[in-house]
């Protein structure tokens, strides 16, 4: 190996030192996601507070991982929860089983469930990964940034 080769090698090292790093300081800075990214689920309500979910269980039928559990109940004049005839008394998603295929979102005819952009979902106890309806109705505790048009990490 001649001295020229060594100089060439160090030249590359030096040039690389000056270039902008491609990596991201993760816990402080979060990777932005694209609009289609499928992360944590969210259940939606109408502006008047009624839930969009009518407990039809189409998402349960569509789910390839069998991770959704829905128990439906009739709406009554005293207790009106959803806009339809029935509502989901229990709506649970076992996030430990979910494969984020988004078929529940595709199946839902009322846009009641969507997959949002939040991707930080780990828990210390796997029992906490069974998300209840209240958790799904609330916005995700850890939001992920959306990628701006043409933005590179």
């Amino acid at each position, binding site marked *: 190996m001649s001295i020229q080769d060594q100089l060439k090698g160090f030249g590359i090292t030096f040039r690389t030192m000056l270039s902008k790093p*491609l990596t991201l300081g993760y816990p402080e800075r979060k990777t932005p996601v*694209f609009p*289609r990214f499928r992360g944590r689920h969210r259940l939606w309500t109408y502006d008047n507070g009624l839930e969009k979910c009518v407990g039809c269980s189409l998402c349960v*039928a569509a789910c*390839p991982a069998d991770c959704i559990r829905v128990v439906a109940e009739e709406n009554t004049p005293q207790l009106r929860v959803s806009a339809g005839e029935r509502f989901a008394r229990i709506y649970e998603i076992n996030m430990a089983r979910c*494969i984020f295929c*988004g078929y529940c979102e595709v199946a839902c*005819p009322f846009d009641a469930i969507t997959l949002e952009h939040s991707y930080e979902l780990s828990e210390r106890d796997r029992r906490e990964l069974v998300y209840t309806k209240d958790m799904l109705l609330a916005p995700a505790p850890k939001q992920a940034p959306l990628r701006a048009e*043409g933005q590179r*990490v």
Partner: protein
Amino acid sequence: MGTEGIDIFTAEAREAREAATREGRELAETERVVAGAEAATPQEALARTREGEDIAARALPGSRDPMIINLGPQHPSTHGVLRLITELDGEIVRDVHPVIGYLHTGIEKQCENKTFWQAITLVTRMDYLSPFFNIHAYTASVEKLLGLEVPERAKWLRVMISELNRITSHLVWLGTSGLELGAITVFFYTYRERDRALDLFEMISGERMNNRYFQVGGCADDVPPGFLGLLKRFVDEMPSRVDEYEGMLSANPIWIERTRGVGVLPADELIDLGITGPALRAAGVDLDLRKARPYSGYEHFDFTVPVGGNGDAYDRYLIRLREIRESTRIIQQCLDGLPEGPHIADDRKVVLPPRPELATSMEALIHHFKLVTEGFRVPEGEAYTAVESPRGEIGCYVVADGGPKPVRVHMRDASFVNLQALRPMAKDAYLADLIAMIGSLDNVMGGVDR
């Protein structure tokens, strides 16, 4: 493992031996491996292997007993969880018994319990480095059974995304193979580009891996705004990146020393073993399903199939790099000539109705309910379709009985078949070269075990 477990295996080995003696034949290869493979310690494996076969008859004067060394399954350079039981004479590998099944997921069996639509999400997860090729083979088989015509735009989108997937798969191969042979730098460079390609996957399909973008009848969604521009930028830059990798490896004396002349098998032997993909083309056999049996509109594209001559690990490396270049050419042609039209077939008995129609059309809503709850029915029959994956021929064999669920989904996975070449290759080679051979065959254990 408790003593109980060992007893069971000992009994199994004894049974095999007794059966062989009764029938007056030598112990078959698989029986010998059963006796050796399940042993708790290498010493025990040696003892059982010795019991299982008549070593005295084989031993030549002056020869030494092989030392049995267990490699894997948790070994950083066996590409996942491949266990290799090697019989070593010093540094020379006298024989190698691959033991697979450590990543068995039961996906093929699971598919039988899912509707045709749901099974798409499972087959992507078999060979996790080429998800698009898995679904492509599966959906093409189902489409063949249904007699469903895929729109032209969907075909082109499939080609475009598949070729991008080929690039990412080869990049992972290049990075990890370099890593295994001590060239760490190239890993960072290839993963830099791969991450950008995964960004593109995320943009179009919503997932970085295990994408369920291809659907029966076409693609799940059309391209999002801005996607084609980013893809164009990626493929424009890619050839210069490949130059960069070649600059690091092609003339690198250590890389050449470790790969040239390693893992050579004659072409006819490779054909006998059923090897496909770059491993076969490196030996000079011009077999690429994209050319040999064009599918999904590959006949419209102008590209060459790189073919090698020596069939060693270095040739496989060169071929994969040239395939990356060819893939960028195909993507360029896709971008230039992407036809307008629907991205999915308009067959209401199979394809979900467009989203906006659910709010307006009762008929669409009924179809939607029926397709989601019950799934579409596929006429009785069986179909096999193969696509050219980064590792060779991935074929999907689907049997339908007229119901909404497949009776059988079988994948002819290239990794599984190509793994067979390891044993004849590794015989009488150095142990260090065995690692280079595993790397050069590019087996993905998720695809091997399924």
